Structure formats: C-alpha cells, structure tokens
C-alpha cells in the first residue's frame, strides 16, 4: 500500500496571460506520504493545489490521481479527492445536516448516516446539526467543510492552510486527523506558511518560488543536504536560504519610547 503512487504530476504549468504562476512542476506523492508545499506569498502554492483539484485547468502538463488522468477522466479522479480551502466555502441556506446529505448524494455515499454522525461527533458539531453556516463560528465552518470532505473517505487530500481559524484543541485534532489518515494510506498535500506544522507532520517537502520547484524531497534528505553545506539547518533556515535572495533576516523594528508619545 505504501508504495502506490497516488498523485503524479508531470510538467504542470499554469499561465495567467503572460504571468507564469506555476512553471513546469513535476512530483509524485505515494500512499501514506504527506507532502508539505511551502513557499513565500505568490509562489504558486494555491494555484498548484487548485490545478491538482481540477478547479482550474492547467495550461500544460498532466495530473494523475490514483492512476486516473484528471483532465481525461475527471469523475474517477475527483471521487478520490478532497480539497480543503483556507476559507470555508459553504452554501448559506443549507444546514449542517443538509450539507452532509447533499455531499453524500454528490459522492453517492451509501449508508452515510453513521459516518456523518461520527464526523459530527468528532468535530463537535452534533448540537449544531440544524444550524445554518451563518450561525457557526469560522472554526466550526471549517470543521463542517472538513466533515463534508471526509464523508466519502477520500484517498487523496489537499489542505490549504488547514489550521486557519481553529482553536488549540481543533489544531491538535486536525494534526491527529491528518496523521491518522496518512497512516491509513491516504496521500496528502499540505500548503502552509506554518513551518513548524510542516516539520511536524510532513514526510516530504516541496519548496516553491516564483512558480518553480526550488527544493523537493524527504525532510531528512533536505535537512541533511543543507546541513552538509551550511551546518545545522532547521526547516525555517532552509526555507529562508532557499527562497530569499540574500537569506538575510528582516531588519529589526525601530525602538519604541513611551516618552516620545504625545499624550492623548
């Protein structure tokens, strides 16, 4: 199970007019692997994920999900997929329960009720089953999106900033949930600026800059490679060296003096 290639990307390129958002990106993610997609703002992480989810068509290149070509056989590919955006995207007029019923029909999940109840319980939404999204906090909306996404037991999961809006307990549960699903054989890609999260749960790292792959490989490989060149290197240090021109940290802020302030 651990050796099956679940996501295979070859020469992925996305152009917006003349602007190259993603440039000739190739990589694979196998079952049980968690790939951390990192890079500075505008590096092309979200665009890459949106191409991999079939939301936007790539300009060039191919994406295979569990062996199905996303462009040629989108239905088979999408049945295996779940994509969790950083911003929860829900239908304002459907209740929590109706969202689950709707998703079950879309993905043809027979006998979804026990699973839905379990997910509601896991994400502490049981008491909110009749609530509309407008009545939920941002974190709860995020949990509902995740519950809907997990209802069809996807084997390929993408997260775009998965911890946004979650409370500490939610963050802990989310991390556990990601790791458990990876252990169960799912392939995952996580795009995040939280390098400690990436370091904690990802098995592989892909650093992007200006749409191009700068570094890719397992966390150990990358750390070892950088350590050989620059001494002991944390993921943060690797990120800065890989993505900034100088690698120099930002200058310190000017000192603040209470005495300088004009009284109100």
């Amino acid at each position: 199970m651990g050796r099956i290639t679940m996501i295979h990307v070859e020469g992925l390129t996305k152009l917006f007019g003349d602007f190259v958002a993603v440039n000739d990106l190739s990589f694979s993610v196998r079952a049980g692997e968690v790939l951390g997609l990192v890079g500075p703002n505008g590096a092309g992480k979200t665009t890459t994920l949106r191409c991999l989810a079939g939301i936007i068509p790539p300009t060039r290149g191919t994406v295979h999900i569990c062996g199905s070509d996303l462009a040629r056989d989108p239905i088979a590919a999408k049945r295996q997929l779940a994509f969790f955006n950083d911003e929860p995207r829900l239908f304002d007029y459907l209740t929590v329960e109706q969202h689950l019923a709707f998703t079950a029909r879309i993905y043809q999940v027979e006998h979804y009720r026990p699973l839905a109840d379990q997910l509601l319980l896991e994400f502490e939404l049981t008491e909110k089953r009749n609530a509309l999204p407008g009545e939920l906090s941002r974190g709860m909306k995020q949990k509902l999106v995740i519950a809907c996404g997990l209802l069809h037991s996807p084997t390929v999961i993408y997260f775009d900033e998965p911890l946004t809006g979650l409370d500490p307990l939610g963050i802990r549960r989310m991390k556990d949930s990601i790791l458990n699903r990876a252990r169960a054989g799912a392939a995952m890609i996580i795009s995040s600026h939280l390098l400690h999260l990436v370091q904690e749960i990802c098995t592989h790292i892909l650093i992007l800059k200006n749409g191009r792959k700068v570094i890719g490989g397992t966390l150990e490989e990358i750390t070892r490679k950088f350590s050989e060149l620059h001494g002991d290197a944390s993921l943060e240090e690797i990120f800065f060296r890989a993505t900034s021109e100088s690698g120099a940290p930002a200058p310190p802020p000017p000192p603040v003096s209470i005495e300088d302030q004009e009284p109100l």
Partner: protein
Amino acid sequence: MRAPGMISALLYLQYHSFRNRLISRVARLKQPKYLVGAIAGGIYFYFYFFRYLFRRGGVWGQGLSPRYELLVELLGALVLFVIVLLAWLIPHERAALTFTEAEVAFLFPAPISRRALIHFKLMRSQVRIFFTILFLTLLTRRSGGNAWTHAIGWWLIFSTLSLHFLGSSFARTMLLDRGISNRMRRLMVFLFVLALAGFVTVWAKRTLPKLNASDLSDLNSIADYAQRVLNSGPALYLLYPFRLVARPYLAGDAGAFLNALGPALLILLLHYAWVVRSNVAFEEASVEASQKLAAKLAAARAGNWQGVKTLRKGKRPLFKLAVTGPPATALFWKNLISAGQAFTFRIWVTIVILAVAIYAGLGTNSHSRDLFSGLAILIGILLGWSLLIGPQIVRQDLRQDLPLADVLKMYPMRGWQVVLGEVLAPVAILAGAQWLLVLFGAAFLLHARGMSEGPLPLAIAFSAILLLPMLDLLLLLIPNAAVLLFPAWIQAGREGPRGIEATGQRLILVLGQLLVFAVTLLPAAAVSAAVFFVIKLALGAAIAVALPPAAVAAAVILAVEAGLGVMLLGRLFERFDLSAELNP
C-alpha cells in the same frame, strides 16, 4: 489628535476613496466589455435624461399649474410628516452609525472624538445624497422646472431627513438608556398620532363644510377639498415645518426660491445642532452593524442575494434526498431549499385553496361571465410576463452559485450534470406557478364561454402545460450561458459593476437574451405551424384537435434544443477557467 488634523485626515480618506473609485472606473473602460457597456449606457442615459438638460425653454421651464401648487406643497409636507413619524415608530435598534469594517478598524481605536465620527458619517452621507440628487434632478428635469433649484431643493429635503433619522436614532437610544422600552415609545407615538388625527378630524367636522358627493365628483373637487383640510386648522400648524422643507424644491421662480431657502436652511441647521450635540454611545451597535453590513456586502458581492437577507433558520427540504441516484438531483434539491419560502407545499396549497374559494364564490354570481373572461385574459398576460420576467427573478441556478464555482468544479460530476441540476429548480418553480395559472385560466375560460366550448380551452391548457417548462428551460439556459461566457457582465450585487457602463452592459444582455430566445423559437414555431396547418387544413380538423399535436411537435423540438443547450453549457462549465474569469 487635534480636531483640524483629524478632520483633514477624515477628508483625506473621503476624498481619496472617491478619487480611487473614480480612477478605477475610468481605467476599466480600457476593457472592451466596459467600454461597449459605457457607450450603450451613455446612449440610454442621454436619450432618457440628459437631452432634457439641453432643450430650449425658459429659465424656469414649465412649472406647476397654480391650481395645484399649494396642494402639491401640502401633500409633499404630508409625505415628509409620515416619513418622520415612521422613523419614530418603526425602528427598534439602538443608534448605530453604519461604518464599513475597515472604518471601524481604523477609526474606532484612533484618538477621534465621538462628534468627529458623527461628522465623518455626515460627510459620507452627503456623498450618497449628492448622487441621489443628481439622479432625481435628471429624472425630474424631464418634466420641466429649474435644474439648480430642484437640485438644491432635493439636497435640503434629503439632508434634513438624513439628520432627522440620525437624531431620532440617538433619541431612541437615550430613551432606551432611561428605561423606556421600544414598546412604550411606540405606544406613546401611536397615542400622539391618534390624538392628532382625532383633533384634526373633530376640527374638520366642525369647521369645514360637510363632505358630500360633489366634493368627490372629479379630481379637481377632491384636490380642492384636500387642500381645504390640509391648509387650515391644526393640520396647517402641524405640516408647516414640513412645508418649509419642501418649499425650495417647489419654488416657481427665483424670488420664491430665495424666500423659501432661509427657513429650510434654518431647519437643517437646527437638525445639525441636534445631532452633533447628542452624546449617545453608538460605537457598540455600530460595530455590530458594520459586521452585518460586511456579511451582506460579501454575500451581495458574491451574487448571493439569499445571503443579503438575514437567514434566521434552515428551510425544510421539499423532498427527502436519497443517497443514490443522479447527482444532479442533489443540486436541484439544494436550490429548492435556497428558494425557501417561494417553493413550499404550504404556500402552493394555500394559493390553490384561495383561488378555488374565489372561483366558487364568483361562480354563483349570474354576472360572472364577463368577469371570468377578464380574469382569463389577465392570466394570459401574467403568463407572458412570467416568461419575460420570471427567469430574471428566480435565480437559484449558476447565477447564484457562480461564486462557489470552485466547489462545484470539485464534484465528481460531468459539466452537463452540474448545469442540469442547477437550472432545474428555477424551471420547477416557474413551471409550477405557470401550471397553476394555466389551470385557473382554463377553468375561467370554460366558465366564461360555457361548457359546450370546452375542447378549445382544454386544448390551449394542454398545449401551454406542455410548452411552458420547455420555454422556461430555454429561457433559463440563456442567462446561465451568459454567466459562463461573460461572468464579469453578470456579476450581481451592490459591489458588482455599477454606473453607466454597468447599465449599458445589462441593456445589451437583456437585448441579447431576447434575440437568442427568438432565434431558438424559430425551428419549433416552424415545425408546430406545419403540423397545425396539415391537421387543420389537410384533414379539416377543428383548432382544438390540431393544437395539441402542434404543441407536442413544438415541445419535442424545444426539448431537443434544451438538451443540446445543456450539453453545450456543460462543456462550457468544464472549460470555465475560474482563475481567468473570476480571479484575474
């Protein structure tokens, strides 16, 4: 922060917000879709409004007839009185100056006094009032009068009302702070109005000549009587301040305008003093209001008008969604829930019961035949309107879901399945309403023409029932195709494209839709006409016999066209590049 510095900062914000908005409006004219829209909108506005600005005529143009001058002033004052009264009667919230979330974030924590915030709000409202005045002046200019006095008159009316609303909201908050509940306040205002109305009525009965039939014999007599009532006794004093506010707008010449200007300005200044001297804590309610406003703007910006309305509780689905079956049904089910109150069994059953009750009640009347003929004609007109306007009103389809197109694109569904699922709900809602109308129309027609002529109304009803859903489907496919082909043109919502260019875009779209619909009707019309004439002329059958087969033929052609349309739109949806169209 010192007051002048603060005011200049707020003016800076106001000026640059306006300037940047204007620049971006002009800059987007580089895009052909906005340029074409601007040209079309410009032509429309010129022919509807602006050409009246350049027409020859006296400086004051055509004024009101002297006979009606006073009456119009009195009625205008009465309208203002009612508006002010409602401002004291209806609202129940605490005073909340509506700021955007960004303004709350920047201004509320800043060292800015409450009074300065009120001034900022007043400045903002002046910008809104300016554009309202511009529009109203152009509109009223069509019927003559001096544009400048009209503009200043409108400004006085709107500014005074705006200040009054603000002042009354402050007063309401102060009353609430002193333990006087909304119910108590409303009761007091209601009793005040009741006492006033009673006073005016008693006075009118005692002093005015009794109202008799001659006072209501024609429009002039009614106007004279109303003028007598409103221009004497307590009504005279009660409406006097409101008349002062309305008078500059209605002034017939320069002298009258200048005479009216002073008192109206004085009332405006008194309102201003009232508002800026009120020291009411509005911040907490304003923060809440700004969040609601932000949510509504986000919903509107996303084209989701359901979201603009505050949804309080979930709607019960019309039917239970089975887990297996075509996935398109899930979208149909979802959009019916979105339609909410418009499509619940309870409402439809209530309509049917009401209509049957009316029908039964009228049926016993011996003079009801003409009435039923009239009602049948009315239903025919309504059906025509439902085809024209219905698809614009019932929008639970891709027009609603376009902002969530990324979610839809992730579903394991073919494009045609998504499109079919999306348009089914509005088709069902429109067809349901139309079928009801057809059934009642047929019943009315049968009653009016007698049962002996039964076959023709029944043939018409059968044909309509067959054709209407197909026509609805085709009509709904056109705007949904426009959404996928020109999403930037369709963007709905308050924050969508506005201005002359947006008006022009809408005009072009409506004309385009009508043209496409006419073209799609041609094959069906040709085939059904051929079938009809073959049966009628060649076989010598009656119209009632020839009509249903012709309708069936037309329905088949329309169904084929609709099917092809769904497939085509499905392909468009699959190729729809969200990144290029919605997030450039």
